[in-house]
């Protein structure tokens, strides 16, 4: 199957005025085929949100791609002019932000905010844009005139997230990047939104890159998973295999946490990964996970491990070579 998205050796830096540079992405390599659903798992600061904003060229001022390539169906996105990127955004690549309440304009009706996207990218007049908007709203479970004319503050958190999903899918893009789409919602709404995403993804045959710090969220939707730590992908492969037999110590630790949570083993002390993610402006030499790793080897503190491939799985750890 042909590759939809190819990211090679992606390096992204943030320029902080007084504090110098911070490397948010330090060599990210992965591929997605059409119709796949890939999850990105990692804690805050690992670079997953940066990855999501880099692909459609939405990095904030002060951040830049210093190396690497991002190809969408053989088309190189790095280095494209803003005008060209604008035609790709919305029509081919879409991004769902973390906080739905903030992603919507408070003084415009939601119907207008969706119809605008249609008018910007699809041929046709205002009437056809409205029709497509109404159809999309129906699909996400917000039917009728009442929702079309509603303002964002009149909707609940879950409903606002549905609007954002409608915005993302209305032009039928090939790739949707969803950055923690459910972390601000309560658990019943969260499961509703996730199942909505699943349904729409299958119906509209959209490829999905889902980002979350919660492995359970990814398990409901994704075929493959990329585990990120300190700006690099430390493990990737088919989700069910990676979850059942995690290789990288970080993945093992993270999943172990979730497993103990599920078994409800309320000890007086919870298992946790000791320490915290490294400060990206002061990275240690060697493997970035080494200070917290329970299975350190001699080489770990000296150099960074290379990626080792085995079938569909890749790991960055000296335990497996590298």
């Amino acid at each position, binding site marked *: 199957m042909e590759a939809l998205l190819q990211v090679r050796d992606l390096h992204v830096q943030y320029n902080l005025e007084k504090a110098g540079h911070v490397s948010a992405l330090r060599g990210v390599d992965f591929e997605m085929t059409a119709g796949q659903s890939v999850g990105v798992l990692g804690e805050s600061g690992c670079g997953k949100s940066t990855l999501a904003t880099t692909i459609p060229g939405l990095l904030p001022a002060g951040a830049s791609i210093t190396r690497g390539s991002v190809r969408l169906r053989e088309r190189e996105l790095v280095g494209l002019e803003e005008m060209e990127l604008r035609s790709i955004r919305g029509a081919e690549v879409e991004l769902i932000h973390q906080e739905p309440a903030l992603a919507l304009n408070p003084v415009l009706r939601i119907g207008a905010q969706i119809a605008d996207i249609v008018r910007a990218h699809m041929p046709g007049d205002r009437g056809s844009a409205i029709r497509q908007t109404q159809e999309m709203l129906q699909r996400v479970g917000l039917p009728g005139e009442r929702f079309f004319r509603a303002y964002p503050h009149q909707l609940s958190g879950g409903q606002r997230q549905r609007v954002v999903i409608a915005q993302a899918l209305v032009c039928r893009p090939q790739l949707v990047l969803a950055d923690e789409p459910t972390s601000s919602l309560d658990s019943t709404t969260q499961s509703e939104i996730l199942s909505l995403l699943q349904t729409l993804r299958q119906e509209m045959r959209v490829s999905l890159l889902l980002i979350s710090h*919660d492995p359970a969220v990814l398990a409901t939707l994704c075929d493959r998973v990329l585990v990120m730590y300190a700006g690099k992908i430390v493990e990737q492969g088919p989700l069910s295999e990676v979850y059942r037999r995690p290789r990288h110590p970080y993945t093992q630790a993270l999943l172990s946490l979730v497993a103990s949570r599920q078994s409800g083993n*309320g000890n007086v002390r919870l298992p946790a990964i000791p320490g915290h993610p490294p400060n990206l402006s002061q990275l240690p030499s060697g493997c970035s996970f080494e200070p917290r790793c329970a299975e350190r080897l001699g080489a770990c503190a000296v150099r960074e491990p290379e990626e080792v491939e085995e079938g569909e799985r890749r790991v960055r750890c000296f335990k497996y070579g590298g």
Partner: protein
Amino acid sequence: MAADGAQVCVGVEPLLRVERLSKSYVHRHPLLLRQHPVTALNGVDLVVGHGCFLALVGESGSGKSTLARCLACLERPWSGSVWFHGKDLVKLGEAELRRTRPKIQLIFQDAATALNPRFSALDLVEEPLRIQHYGSARARRQKALEAMAQVGLPPDCAQRFPHQFSGGQRQRLAIARALVQEPELLVLDEALSGLDLSLQAQIMNILFELRQQHALTYLYISHDLGLVRQVADEVAVMDGGRVVERASAAELFRSPQQPVTQALVRAVPEIAGIRPVAGSW
């Protein structure tokens, strides 16, 4: 322990007793005459035992946050009583309330918005002591540094400002600030929601330790049943402004009675086939 958490809470003298607490918000339309009352609390009955880790769960709009604010005396309910040390908090005068407030502390979800960005970390933790005219400046500083150490914030970050801390560290700061006032009951309103899983576990461990050391009682409000199942002794479920079910954590997850509880339990995403790894975590 959560497994036999019922034993911790049953037969224990109640620290706090809430009786038929009710509160509505009246929303007045700015130009027209319309008013619609929104009922937040509809006769809440709740007992919190000494030393208990009670979780309060429910969907958005069930009234959890309103209850938290009423218990911390930040808002006054319309009717009902909150019995604490033999006194009804609802009926206390301002002076007495000021004396009681330090004993019930509230920690919010987003510490960043609760912390004054112009104060250094040490100032923030000292502030409540200053307001209560506690001891000398040196004694206050000492107590503040102690509290910070207990939550895992080393003294060298005392002069840093909130925006220079990570989200997890800010949350610890909020806990230190509450700790300094020697509370008996700590109400945590979604205080760990949205944090990384490992961070949640670390801060929860700190809370466990503090509970042992200072004989604290916790009222933990959350919509994240996954975490609740792991840490709570007992769970109370709120719906439509009332408590509709209450059981030990294990019991609630084994056989939820009410439909709303069943829906909440069902909504917890589970991953099949993963096992905890015995390690030196």
